[in-house]
């Protein structure tokens, strides 16, 4: 087989946030058979070497690193399950523009979104109401459990989109406060 340039689309370098800790992963596939990686964390810890990765059923992989075996399976959004333990993971492509930093939760308008799919049980405020930080805004129920959503700031209810007794999806905006 003709030896190709090792770098032609075979190299990946991505920034990572794994278990809340920043780092980076780079992968080089010199040939289809021989792949190596380098994972470095911001705390200075580093691991690198060859690895082998094989697809199991849809979405699950077997990863071998230095003779040790890791079963990597999909988990909840934002999570992979490694040998049965959930690992929170986010990847960022440094070539793309980085997302905005910091939360806008306490500046300007803030969307109050449903944390889970469910039913709006009660609206505790109306549009135009003055509210305080920590004040209950709306109660969403799912799986026999009620969840009271509290205001992240002191201010005003700008808009109430949720309707009592209506069904909402996870992430759906229920109210806007500012």
């Amino acid at each position, binding site marked *: 087989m003709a030896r190709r340039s090792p770098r032609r689309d075979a190299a*990946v370098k*991505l920034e*990572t*946030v*794994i*278990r809340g800790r920043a*780092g980076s*992963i780079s*992968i080089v596939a010199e040939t289809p058979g021989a792949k190596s*990686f380098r*994972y470095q*964390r911001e705390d200075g*810890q580093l*691991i690198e070497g060859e*690895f082998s*990765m094989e697809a199991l*059923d*849809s*979405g*699950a*992989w077997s*990863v071998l*690193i*230095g003779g040790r075996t*890791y079963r*990597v*399976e*999909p*988990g*909840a*959004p*934002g999570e*992979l*399950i*490694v*040998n*049965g*333990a*959930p*690992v929170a*993971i*986010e*990847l*960022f*492509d440094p*070539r*793309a*523009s*980085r*997302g905005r930093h910091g939360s806008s939760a306490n500046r300007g308008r803030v969307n109050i979104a449903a*944390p*889970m*799919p*469910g039913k709006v049980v009660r609206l505790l405020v109306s549009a135009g109401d003055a509210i305080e930080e920590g004040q209950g805004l709306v109660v969403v129920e*799912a*799986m*026999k*459990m009620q*969840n009271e959503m509290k205001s992240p700031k002191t201010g005003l209810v700008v808009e109430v989109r949720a309707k009592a007794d209506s069904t909402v999806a*996870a992430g759906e905006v229920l109210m806007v406060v500012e």
Partner: protein
Amino acid sequence: MFVKVLVSNRGEIAVRLIRGLREMGIASVAVYSDADRASLAVALADEAAYLGPSPSSESYLRIDKILDAARRHGAEAIHPGYGFLSENAEFAEACAASGIVFIGPRAEAIRRMGSKTEARRVAIAAGAPVVPGTEQPIEDVEQAKAIARSLGYPVLLKASAGGGGKGMRQVDREEDLASSWRDASSEALRAFRNGEVYIEKLVVEPRHIEIQVLGDHYGNLIHLGERECSIQRRHQKVIEECPSPVMLLHPELREQMGTAALRIARHAGYSNAGTMEFLVDRDRNFYFLEMNTRLQVEHPVTELVTGLDLVEWQLRIAAGERLTLSQEDITWSGSAIECRIYAEDPERQFLPSPGKITHLREPAGPGVRLDSGVYSGFTVPFDYDPLLAKLAVWGPSRDRTIARLDRALAEYSIAGIRTNAAFFREILADTEFREGRLSTAFLDGFFARRAPDESGIEAEAAAAIAAATTMPRQTPAPVDRNNSGWLAAAREGMLR
């Protein structure tokens, strides 16, 4: 024996009952709401009847619709499972009035033992120990103060019609009594349409241990030993086991509690399967708490150690057969522990996590019993409780059962929604759990000492490799921390 039985429930318990019916050669009728048309229970049953819209008030709690379905399908009996209408005396009566056998105790027994105060009176009359306190609902604050003073603080306020922690308040000081009573009473009124509240002495850091009983229509009654259910979160059981670690050291306690439970059951004229809940204090004094007049969620634990099939006996007793087992026939072998797999997020205050299961690998192999109501591709509805499955494991000893359960949990992976499956592995690794030092306060202590997971950089690297390799790199769209390219891809199923 019956030819056809309707299962008026959903989820894992409907599946378990349908399996049991099939094994007994009895045709099964599942019922379903809009949210459950694609449920495993419907897929596994012989017949299925539509009840109505998803809210349980329009489906699984509708006595009229359920009886109508039973009539249409020619079912001779109804098994109510647990929850929903399982402890509803009117439902039992309505079944009888329709000529349909309710698989459970008689309506009178449900009514009597379903009321906490009434059940307490029965226990006292039967000579069984109860938690010191009143039998009567509180009438006014002064009466309440007098009672609390005589018991000594802390005391517990409890709803007469209650369960699941609703209408319950711990009171440490007399000055809090009045407001706690008001809170408990109004919560009870909302939950049970009955605001009656009574006072008990609070047993500090008790074990929650229950005794399974089984009785026929001819006065034969036996107990099948205990289940320790001390690991609870907000009064919801999370882990159950048999034998209780305290009974491993003090085997005489099983017989003492079993005898007390049988005395209460006999006094109540109880038949079919039922469970007496007790609190056990550090000195192994036990106090009758309440009775569940139905099959328990955690019945597999008893089935694994006794080799008996509780559902089979429920059906045989309901069909009028005699309980051919005597107390001497019951033996307990090895150790069984069950974990309740809930759709909830242990990292976000156990927030419910309904939704579509996009990937599912289930544990199997030696000693593993999985009672699941879900499958890969099923959308877990938000209308019902979050119990997805029960993972129950048997082993020759408690240590081995813990090791096996950990092994099985490590094989369990559920994607798309969040579950507490991995969280159990942390509990199993906890020294106090392993040493059997359990109480209903266990989880509070556990959360206080819980350490962050530090299982090595190599596992992180494996996750990073898998994610980086499968991320669709050709379109490096603008990424932000809350919606990275990889996460978005995962959500849209591109990685699956």
